[in-house]
Every structure is written in C-alpha cells, then in structure tokens.
C-alpha cells in the first residue's frame, strides 16, 4: 500500500525553524512506522536523522511522536497509524526536549534527571558469598518498574515537564521506585530526599499522559503515588 508520511524536519546548519517534509512510500499494512522511516532514509532522502538500535521495542531508542502520541516507531504498525491519521502518518521528535536534528532530540536533560535518583543498587553490607537473596513477594513488590527501558516517551508526554524541565519526570521516579522498594537496597532515604525536593514527585498533577505513553505498560502514576506515600509516612511497606 502507498503510505504518506509527514515528517518534521530540522537541520541546524540550514534551517531557522522546523518544516514539514512529505514523503510517499510503499509499505505493507503490517510494516512498522520505523520501516517506513527507513524507506525514506534509505531510498528517498538520506539526510533524514533518527535514532534506533534494536528496532524491536527493547532498547527504547526510537521513541518519537507519531500522530501526536509519544511511541516507539518500531511498535506501531503502518495500518494502525494510517487509520489514526486518516491516510497520513505524522512523525515528530519527542516534545519538551531540544531538537538536535530532525527526529533526534537532546536526551541530556532527561538523563540528568535520571542520574539524580541514584539509579543503582546501594548496599553497604559486605558482599555475601552468593546472591543477595529475596523472596518472590519481595521481588514482586517492584516488578512493574523494572520494565522501564528509558525511552523518555513518558517524561516527554508530561505537561509538568514541558512547563519546566527541572521537574524530575515520571521516568526518573519509576527508576527510583525500582530501587526504593527493593529489599536488598539501602539507599531509599537518600532517594526519597531527592524526590521530596521542589521539583520532585510533588510536581506530578496526575494527568496520566505518562501511563498512556509508556510502551511497556508500566502503571507509572501508581508508582509515583507509592513514592509520595513513602515520603509522607516514612514507611516502605
């Protein structure tokens, strides 16, 4: 089938502002939007810049705004996107972050917020001879937030983040949640202190855009509320 793509283009060396590039490509209905973008880059205009690595919904590199929704280009089928856009697929870079070129955004503000929550295991006990054991229930406590692939679809769909990039954002809170509620971790106090700051969890307005955007189906708002409760009560159970 013929697929019409409308892609937001911007070349910092040539353009003063972004413009729309229109392309017509041949694709199967069950191809992904990423395949259509590949077609444009490989056969029509090699200057199109986009990020992608695994192309199978695992690495989180190709998050972009397709028909106004933050999604992974490798997880949206052409027929699905064509239906939504009445025959035209609109592709834009993730909103809320500076555009480097075309669909490539500067992820540094996003990763700066990620680093703030100390996203690694903190445990000052002497290392045990074998694994640090955990019951299935203890593992289950933070299972949902282990699914995050740091694609930034959630954080860049958040109006609080659009208004102020200082806001730590849903992805960083999800990552913090993953360690705060891990029975093997001892860094919860420090992480909760970071998240209790001015631009921490309290900037969440429970808009649920992040939950709609997450390609992994993480119940992000629930995780944020659990972190808020942990801050308020000082308890992790």
């Amino acid at each position, binding site marked *: 089938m013929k697929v019409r793509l409308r892609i937001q283009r911007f070349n910092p060396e040539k353009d003063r502002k972004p413009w729309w590039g229109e392309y017509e490509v041949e694709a199967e209905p069950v191809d992904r939007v990423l395949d259509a973008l590949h077609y444009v880059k490989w056969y029509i205009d090699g200057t199109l810049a986009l990020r992608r690595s695994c192309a199978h919904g695992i690495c989180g590199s190709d998050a972009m705004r397709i028909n106004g929704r933050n999604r992974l280009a490798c997880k949206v089928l052409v027929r699905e996107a064509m239906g939504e856009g009445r025959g035209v697929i609109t592709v834009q870079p993730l909103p809320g972050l500076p555009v480097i070129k075309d669909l490539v955004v500067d992820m540094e503000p996003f990763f700066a917020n990620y680093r703030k929550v100390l996203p690694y295991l903190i445990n000052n006990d002497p290392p045990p001879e074998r694994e640090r054991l955990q019951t299935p229930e203890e593992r289950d406590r933070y299972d949902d937030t282990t699914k995050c692939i740091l694609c930034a679809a959630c954080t860049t769909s958040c109006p609080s983040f659009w208004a102020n990039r200082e806001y730590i954002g849903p992805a960083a809170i999800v990552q913090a949640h993953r360690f705060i509620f891990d029975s093997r971790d001892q860094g919860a106090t420090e992480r909760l202190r970071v998240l209790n700051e001015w631009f921490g969890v309290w900037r969440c307005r429970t*808009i649920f855009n992040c939950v709609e955007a997450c390609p992994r189906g993480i119940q992000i708002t629930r995780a944020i509320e*659990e972190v808020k409760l942990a801050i308020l009560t000082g308890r992790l159970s």
Partner: protein
Amino acid sequence: MKEASRWKRAGGWVDLRGRREGGLAFLLMRLTGIGLVIYLFIHLYVLRLLAQGPEAWDAFIAMAKSPLFLALDGLLILGILYHALNGVRVTLLGLGIGVPHQARLFWGVMTLTLLMTAVAVYAIFAITG
C-alpha cells in the same frame, strides 16, 4: 539545537491526541480554573455597586434576572461543580487512593457535575421564573 518556545511547549496540554480521561480531566481543570479566577474579578468588580447605593444595586439585580444572565449562572455552576468535584478526584489520586480507577472516577465526576448542574439550572429558572 532547536528549542521550542516555552509557550509552544506548555501549549501541548490542549493537544488531546492520544490522551484519554486523565488528560481531558487536566485540561478541563485548567480551563475551569482560569475561568473561575476571571469570574472572581468580575464578581468583585460588580460588588463595588454596593458602595454606590441601593439604586445602582437594584438596577444590576434587575439585569441579572434576564434569561441570558441566568444561563451564564448555569455555566458558572457547571464550572464550579466540575472544578470542585475533580478537585476531590485529584486529591484522592494524590493520596494514592483509587489510582487504577482514575478513568471511572473521571466519568463519575462528569456525571455528578452534569446532574447537579441540571438540578441547579432547573431551580434557578423555577425560582426566578
């Protein structure tokens, strides 16, 4: 690097593509909030008539009983009710209560808002008519 303007970035909240109940609730909350602030100032401005004596006030009250004004009262009640009831929803969600049911809570808020507005509008027209 190209940075979208602050206005353009923040303006994304009126873009409802791909957004569902939560996004709609937030947008309506903002709009009714802005509306109520504007109303507050109009209200205070009108109240100054009290300082100008009974004639000025009575003349205003006579105008306030016109059908157009009463219809605007209905709109005001709609805005107040939505803002108040959704405020309760947001408070509950903020306390971690009912997060998985947020969409159903939103439709509950909408139903209550419309029902109570209908009752209020009926009462207004029944009393003044």
